[in-house]
């Protein structure tokens, strides 16, 4: 029996006196698309950042394809795990194309020509062929985020982490980013997404995980959580959220 792609095992994490994550456990198989939901401060973003070691866990373990992430070289780990940020974090001094080629050249040791070729292809895949030579400041929010996605995808990761990818976007720009994410899910990418976009969760997620106050309250297929949740808290939170962000 093969290992799950991602195995989060009884993870605890604290920030000073405050407990952020308490006993979180879940698994992800290849091609799973799981959505993390929960109120602000429930630890969702921290969970993502623990997986690529931007934040360190205090107890428990996380494994990628059978290897504990603390046994792997940290840069090696990050090559296999892609991350898309809420604030895009595009390299401000580089063009869209260069944002994507930087990782290819410096981390994967691509030559100049191969890097440009791959980057151009990746940008086209997210619909930004014309914007390759633009600087981040010249792009709209939705375009910036798609560059962010392209940058992460170009590294051919096994797992993609999305940290509230549309929260910083104006409403009319959210759609283009969600569409790219849906296509990605269809193509079989393994994705762990923190978001409030319930429409995306209903359409594309294999499982929805509800976090509250650092604890994993409930997880299950979207139909189950939305229509027949086990806990009252889950029901209360999801119905509130669907009113604001649902149905797309």
């Amino acid at each position, binding site marked *: 029996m093969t290992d799950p792609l991602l195995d989060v095992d009884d993870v605890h994490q604290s920030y000073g006196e405050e407990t952020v994550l308490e006993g979180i456990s879940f698994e992800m198989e290849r091609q799973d698309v799981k959505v993390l939901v929960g109120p602000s401060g429930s630890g969702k973003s921290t969970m993502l950042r623990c997986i*690529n070691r*931007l934040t360190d866990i205090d107890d428990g373990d996380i494994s990628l394809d059978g290897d504990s992430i603390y046994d792997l070289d940290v*840069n*090696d780990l*990050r*090559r296999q795990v*892609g*991350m898309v*940020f809420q*604030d895009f*974090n*595009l*390299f*401000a*001094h580089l063009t869209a194309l260069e944002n994507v080629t*930087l*990782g290819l050249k*410096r*981390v994967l040791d691509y030559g100049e020509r191969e890097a440009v070729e791959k980057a151009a292809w990746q940008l086209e895949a997210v619909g930004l062929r014309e914007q390759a030579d633009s*600087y*981040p*400041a*010249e792009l709209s929010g939705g375009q910036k985020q798609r560059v*962010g996605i392209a*940058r*992460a995808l170009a*590294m051919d990761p096994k797992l993609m982490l999305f940290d509230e990818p549309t929260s910083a976007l104006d409403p009319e720009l959210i759609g283009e980013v969600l569409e790219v994410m849906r296509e990605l899910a269809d193509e079989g990418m393994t994705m762990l997404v923190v978001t409030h976009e319930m429409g995306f969760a209903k359409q594309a997620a294999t499982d929805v995980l509800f976090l509250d106050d650092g604890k994993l309250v409930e997880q299950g297929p979207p139909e189950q959580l939305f229509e027949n949740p086990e806990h009252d808290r889950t029901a209360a939170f999801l119905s509130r959220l669907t009113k604001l962000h649902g149905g797309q």
Partner: protein
Amino acid sequence: MDPTQLLLQAGVGDWEFVWRQRQFFVDGTWLAVKLTFFSMLLGFVVGLPAGVVEAYGGRYSKGVVRPLGVVVRGTPILVIISLTYFAFGVSPAFVAATLALGVRSAAYQSQIFRGAIESVESGQMEAARAVGLSKLDAIRHVVLPQALRRSVPGFQNEFTIVLKDTSIAYAIGVAELLKRSYDLFSIQTTAALEVFLAASLIYFVLTFTVNRGIEQLHDRVAIPGGNQ
């Protein structure tokens, strides 16, 4: 003697004297320029790594660099120059002056670079690490290119300071512009005003032109969409 008499006394004769001695001024200016250039260079070569250490260093490296910087920045350049030349015996005087000015500049440039690095949002570093770049590569390819562009105004300011501080090399006998002026003044004391005014004018022209030049450079290397 009243002011009008003073102005009359600053007659053509003394300005003529300045003009006749112009080679003195040229030599002194050239020396001042050389001093400034090499000191700034030394300051950059030492100051940039120091700034990076202060921004990213661990407890021990910071624990060394920071206090060192505080001490150098708290000591008058006159004392640093005197220490270098008289106490440590660095010779000739030009080298001592360059070393002293360079060390002082390094201490200040490290602050310029540290501030610029810290002004680059932490998200840039995070994104670079998330892609798999090592910390060193992330600093080299993502943070520093942006930080260096933001350092230009501080650098401009530092240049002006170093150029003016070269006048203090006078204390160890370096024949830069102000010392030459003083020597001329001792030859013809009535020309004091003309001589020192001429020197001041030269300093002013130098700082003015380089400042405008750096501003041009700043516009050229600006990142499209803003440097903020």
